[in-house]
């Protein structure tokens, strides 16, 4: 069951690579978060641990609810960005996507101490998400995509936590989600300012500081 949800999360990340509009990418982020919630829910149902239920609620409200909503609100508040074709270079994205999946599978296999198959699958999905998030951050010139990439990396690590450590302590999970909400706030402040002063959210315009 968890494998299906994990696969859904990976699919959403791969789809992000091919999108043309930032808004669609953020909607995919919401899908991804819901898939993660699905993983937690399936684990909760299987193991009946009450703390997981709380973690589930937190993930649902924070990752799948507040964060995508705040990002969409930010996008709508900014000047409409012209459609400049695919957000990321298509061929590079193809290589990155395939490479991420292969690398993740290789690492998950070699996990020190070995893992039971369901956990290994989850870990592979987690590493894929993290690598794809890293690709989004480094390959895109749009600040909004970079912040989405950051959240994808965090989703990957969240999933990794589920895979190898049955999730982190509840207080830590709460703290991480809280941090991510603060990150959206900070990104909103900075991006609004960036839009105001530079009239652009392209980070290739941010090359003034050198040396």
């Amino acid at each position, binding site marked *: 069951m968890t494998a299906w949800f994990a696969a859904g999360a990976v699919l959403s990340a791969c789809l992000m690579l091919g999108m043309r509009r930032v808004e669609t990418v953020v909607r995919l982020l919401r899908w991804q978060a819901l898939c993660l919630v699905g993983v937690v829910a399936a684990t909760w149902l299987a193991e009946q641990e009450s*703390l997981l239920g709380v973690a589930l609620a937190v993930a649902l409200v924070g990752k799948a609810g507040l964060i995508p909503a705040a990002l969409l609100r930010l996008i709508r508040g900014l000047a409409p960005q012209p459609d400049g074709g695919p957000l990321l270079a298509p061929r590079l994205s193809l290589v990155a996507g395939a490479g991420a999946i292969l690398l993740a599978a290789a690492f998950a296999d070699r996990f*020190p*101490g070995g893992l039971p198959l369901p956990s290994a699958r989850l870990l592979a999905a987690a590493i894929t998400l*993290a690598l794809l998030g*890293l690709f989004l*951050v480094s390959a895109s010139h749009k*600040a909004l995509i*970079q*912040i989405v990439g*950051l959240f994808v*990396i*965090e989703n990957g*690590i969240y999933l*990794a*936590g589920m895979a*190898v*450590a*049955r999730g*982190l*302590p*509840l*207080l*830590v999970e709460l*703290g*991480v989600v*809280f*941090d991510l909400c*603060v*990150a959206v*706030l*900070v*990104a909103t*402040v*900075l991006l609004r*300012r*960036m839009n105001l*002063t*530079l009239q652009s959210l392209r*980070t290739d315009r*941010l090359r*003034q*500081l050198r*040396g």
Partner: protein
Amino acid sequence: MSAHSISIGATPLLGGLAVWLLSFMLGLPPLAGLAAWAARRRSIGGAIHAAGALGWGAAGLGLAWVVSTGGGGTAWRGLIHIDHLSALLIGIVAGISALVAFYSIGYLKIEAARGRVTDRQVRYYYLLYHALVGLMLLVAAVNNLGLMWVAVEATTLVSALLVGFTGTPHAIEAAWKYVILCSVGIALALFGTVLTAAAGGPLVGAHGAGLDWTSLAPVADRLDPALMKVAFVFILIGYGTKAGFAPMHTWLPDAYSEAPSPASALLAGALLNCALYAIIRFHALTAMSVGAAFSSQLLIAFGALSIAVALPFLLAQHDLKRLLAYSSVENVGVIAIGIGLGSPLALFGALFHLLMHACTKTALFLAAGRIVQLYGTKTISQIRGASIAAPASGTLLLLGALAIAGSPPFGTFVGEFSIISASFLSDRSWLGAFILASLVCVFGGLLYHAGRVCLGNAPPLPHQAAGPFSLGSALIPIGLVLGLGLYLPPFIGEALREAVRIIAGGGM
């Protein structure tokens, strides 16, 4: 008299006074920040800001003293754990942040008088300031390594707003680079934390305690070595990004340069050490699990690389604050090498240098801040005759440059000399020679640039510097560096030695 002992499964509780101080230290920052932000006028906000800084500053220093002399322990049902290593960080953060808080008032008064910040922005600065300090103190005090991560990431987010405070295109660029680079880095550190939880889980048992230092340290020698190795690599790269290790340091010169000078002082003097602290904690765990060689070699490698990368940028630098930033990267490299060498002498040198560097760099940023405000520019070639136009700041800059370059009788000499000696003693003469050669270059470069700024004839200056309050904030740390270089009070020496024992052997 030390109240703690290296024992398995029984960490003492913090004494009553310590718990009171802890509560003030952690409780005051959010209250003071919110109150200062909500104040009607800038002057009232400033008064609340100063009172708050005095409060948590005294509480933090007091707590550091109590723990250093009387031993550490846990509090708040195991949520908090303070030992000599935490006490070192708490002392640095509380002291430095309080001094810079007082400096900020005068600095912002001038900026407001010139119309560069509004009253509302000043109160917003106070809010961010106290939030940042509260989070940094939390990093030092918290027991759970996962919560430590939460606090470190939160400091990145809050300090990013301080970096972008002035709102200029350069500041926004610096703030964005900072947020993205450091958050990606810290995400890697989270993965390392997750792997540590995976290693600790089977040994510690209870779901919540899997990342508690007090649970992990006693069983560290039984943690899965392969897992801890992978975990440490991610931790080092992750927290190392925040600490300024090369090649992940690229955000640092931009952020330190574009932030308002008191914020730069806070970043360089306090926040940097929080990242180093996190690395040191994990290094201690990994060394107990895997043996010291693995993490030590990585630390030495990153340290040497940081020094090598920082050097050319330091020598050929045009911006006064970027100069200080690259100096931070170089010093972080020296500290990392000291931690990596691992002998008691090297560890002592590293921790002592951590303290000395924090004080010196703070004094330098504050002095440079006054000069930059006076001259209206950060470009070194445009600043001349600072020792005439602003005698106190100019002299402080020169003294600070001497100190940060490691010359005796400053305390920075003691730390760096210990590390160099330790590398020669441990058959790594090439490392000692490398550090020595780099320090000679740094000495030349820094004094050259400081000389350009301070000597010569001062051009007519349009602006006014801030009042004596600001000067005291810079004088105290440099005085401390000089004082501790000449005489090390026994209690500080003993406290540092206890902290060394924690890193070397996992004592609690």
